[in-house]
């Protein structure tokens, strides 16, 4: 009855003509579905739309910064633009992107489960996402919000703009995030296939697990915080208002208590994707599986203790600054462990050079550079100069774009055949990857230098000495944009006319590839039973070398 799943040549199941995409048709069947795969696809469409919107605003901001003086918009419009860019990219794209799309789609498949633990809650989460998204975006476009995505009090409580719908939107998006995280944790605890102990979980699952812990435990605090700002603004309760005895720094503490771990909500799933893809494309066991798994939990845990490094010049005490700085150094170590292990996985592999691999190469460079500049800004004396300058902007874009979007693209390419049963054009994939990796460097390396030169962030006009670097950055951004347009074109083409994919086009040993591509409605024809560790690339019967370095 049971199908031994780790055998070298999984019996090729007859191509299923009925799959999760076409077993039911019509918009209604999608809107009322509780199938985790369809919800994943709905998330994919939604976050791509959000990315498009956020990207357009980013381009507008970059064009405005071409000249030191007003270029294409007024100061208030500019302030709204970067707020929109930040809020849309962070709350609507980064946070739900990988968990919402690939977590939803792949997690039950990887666990050998039929669905997530609470399918209806899962559907609720995307409806909450849509509600929050519509509230936030329409609120920002119609009412305007000019606070930046950080909503720092007392500016946010005193700005004339109508901030309330945006705050409410963020609050609801927080709920969506909590529901997703809660669902994943319970799924991982209770729905693992027989034989899948904790140390046999695919690393993607480990990453999502760590992410979900943060989502569940940190998000309530931001929910409360934005509501307090809303109440303060509407009713004047004085909690963050210095004229009534309130402490604005309290807001920053509460905000960063969520928003620092939120960085790991974005980054941990990206790391998880890379762990998964790097094993598949180098056809090799993960080097140091346990270290990668535990370092995910380590990041999730220690990440909760580091929030104060966003507040080195905000009037926080000298002692506290030191404490947060030293803790931040330890978060860096966990990331370093992962990087060493990824590179170690490539060692003595059988590497198939392909589009995702180009992104992996870029990712490794970006995460080391982005991560270590993170250590640099956590070095207190250096942060005094860099805080709130373009150096910080460049640093977190290295992580947010360089790591998260690279990982999103890796996941999109790696799992595209799984999700849609079609192949994309490899050649165009490589071209686009080239544009993106180069364009990315050209966009953000000048921003590091801008920060060094002393250009504060959120500047509409700037002294002329910063112009050359700004122009370079905008030029790089256009390369990046071209790359994304190419991807959009060839993936759309692949979706409609692409070559039909076989069930496991990469010969990956990930458990998600055990079902057909695209998977049938209930994922597996038979309940998989796990008999080997995750990411095992040894053909049965063959003697393999065991190496310890």
């Amino acid at each position, binding site marked *: 009855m049971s199908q031994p799943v780790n055998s070298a040549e999984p019996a090729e199941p007859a191509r299923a003509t009925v799959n999760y995409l076409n077993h039911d048709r019509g918009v209604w069947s999608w809107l009322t579905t509780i199938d985790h795969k369809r919800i994943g696809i709905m998330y994919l469409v939604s976050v791509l739309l959000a990315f498009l919107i956020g990207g357009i605003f980013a381009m507008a901001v970059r064009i405005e910064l071409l000249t030191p003086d*007003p270029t294409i918009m007024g100061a208030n419009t500019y302030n709204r633009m970067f707020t929109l860019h930040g809020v849309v990219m962070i709350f609507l794209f980064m946070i739900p992107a990988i968990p919402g799309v690939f977590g939803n789609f792949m997690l039950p498949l990887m666990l050998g489960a039929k669905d997530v633990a609470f399918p209806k809650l899962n559907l609720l989460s995307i409806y909450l996402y849509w509600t929050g998204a519509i509230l936030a975006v329409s609120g920002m476009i119609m009412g305007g919000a000019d606070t930046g995505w950080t909503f720092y009090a007392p500016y946010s409580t005193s700005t004339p703009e109508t901030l309330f719908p945006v705050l409410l939107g963020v609050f609801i998006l927080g709920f969506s995030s909590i529901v997703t995280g809660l669902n994943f944790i319970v799924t991982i605890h209770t729905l693992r296939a027989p034989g899948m102990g904790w140390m046999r979980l695919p690393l993607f699952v480990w990453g999502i697990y760590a992410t979900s812990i943060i989502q569940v435990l940190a998000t309530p605090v931001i929910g409360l915080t934005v509501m307090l700002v809303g109440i303060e603004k509407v009713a004047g309760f004085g909690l963050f208002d210095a004229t009534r005895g309130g402490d*604005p720094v309290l807001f920053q503490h509460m905000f960063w208590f969520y928003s620092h771990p939120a960085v790991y909500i974005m980054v941990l799933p990206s790391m998880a994707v890379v762990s998964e893809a790097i094993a598949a494309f180098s056809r*090799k066991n993960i080097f140091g599986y346990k270290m990668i798994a535990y370092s995910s939990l380590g990041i999730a845990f220690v990440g909760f203790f580091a929030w104060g490094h966003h507040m080195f010049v905000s009037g926080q005490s000298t002692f506290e600054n030191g404490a947060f700085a030293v803790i931040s*150094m330890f978060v860096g170590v966990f990331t370093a462990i992962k990087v060493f292990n990824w590179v170690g996985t490539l060692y003595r592999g059988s590497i198939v050079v392909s589009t995702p691999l180009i992104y992996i190469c870029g990712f490794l460079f970006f995460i080391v550079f982005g991560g270590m500049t993170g250590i640099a800004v956590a070095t207190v004396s250096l942060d005094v100069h860099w805080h709130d300058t373009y150096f910080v902007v460049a640093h977190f874009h290295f992580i947010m774009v360089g790591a998260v979007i690279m990982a999103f693209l890796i996941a999109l390419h790696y799992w595209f055949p799984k999700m849609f049963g079609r192949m994309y054009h490899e050649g165009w994939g490589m071209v686009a990857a080239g544009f993106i990796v180069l364009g990315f460097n050209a966009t953000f390396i000048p921003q590091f230098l801008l920060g060094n030169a002393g250009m504060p962030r959120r500047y509409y006009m700037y*002294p002329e000495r910063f112009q050359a670097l700004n122009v370079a950055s905008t030029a790089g951004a256009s390369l990046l944009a071209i790359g994304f347009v190419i991807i959009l074109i060839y993936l759309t083409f692949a979706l409609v006319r692409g070559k039909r994919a076989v069930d496991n086009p990469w010969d990956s040993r990930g458990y998600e590839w055990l079902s057909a591509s695209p998977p049938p409605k209930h994922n597996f024809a038979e309940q998989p039973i796990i008999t080997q560790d995750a990411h095992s690339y040894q053909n049965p019967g063959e003697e393999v070398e065991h190496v310890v370095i």
Partner: protein
Amino acid sequence: MNDIMRKLLWLPDQASTFAPSVDHLHYFVITVTMLASVATGLLAFGFFFKYRERTPNASTPIVNPSVRFELGVIGVPLFFFLLWFVQGYRDYVWYTTPPGNTMDIYVMGKKWMWKFSYGGEGPNAIGTIHVPADRPVRLLMTSRDVIHSFYVPDFRIKQDVLPGRYTETWFEATKPGRYQILCAEYCGTWHSQMWGEIVVMPGPEFDAWLADQRRGLSDRVDTGGDDGASFHGSIVEYGKKIAMAQGCLKCHSVTGEPHIGPTWLDLYRRTETLETGEKVVADEAYLTDSMIDPRAKIVKGYKPVMPTFKGRLAAPEAAALVEFIKSLRSTSLENVPSKEAVYEPASK
């Protein structure tokens, strides 16, 4: 070496005692970062070629890290990180602990300007402060409205300025010159224009300057103060608002840099040479006329592109604009006694 690195990294002048120390750590950190990230990228790239697939579906060896390797992976980065932390925190403690003999200047941030006040007898200033070189200066800062951040790139100092309480920072400038102050914490529409200037003077020169300012103050008090118009602050604010609303600031800078039109900084009572070669003093009459009939008297070097604001500005609005322009002085010092902010010395 220092200079090459500084230019390569686009760092501004090192004009305070902190700057060289901060920069040296900066060079160290950024060099290691560059090396590590490029090495990682290249190593991965090299592996792509060295270990590329030779036979499809080949078995690969199981490679695992030894305990020694794991400890190394944890230890080496941690060593560097903690080294940076120790050095950085030492500098930071230096930077947050003013020596006992500082000269105190009170700073107030306000949308979107910096106000300064010298302790004791003044003088006060908007936008520009004069400080002596080679003497420690402590800034005691607070905000009138939202959070601002006092940032002087050339000194490598930055400190948020908060409403309802004080923050402090100190520095010791090493090179006479003029250095820009920027607001680094987002504070609204004209956050990007909330600039000021620190003028560093050699010690004796500064003493003379300060004495001069204070003498001027007592002279004024003797002669019964200023005879000029006494306007309420709201008029200047109002004028600024109109300047923004009417788009004046799109062509006229308030910072001294010429733009499409002449800068407004120090414009009042300035002698301008017109296209016709004629000289004119920019008094109230000239300023008002220029709003109503801008093309009549074009300053040399500028194009006649300004539209008329006749009918678009009410009389009080035009007056407010003039007052706003009058307020824009690069060395705006006022000779009145300083109302010193109440300040309890830090109990350290």
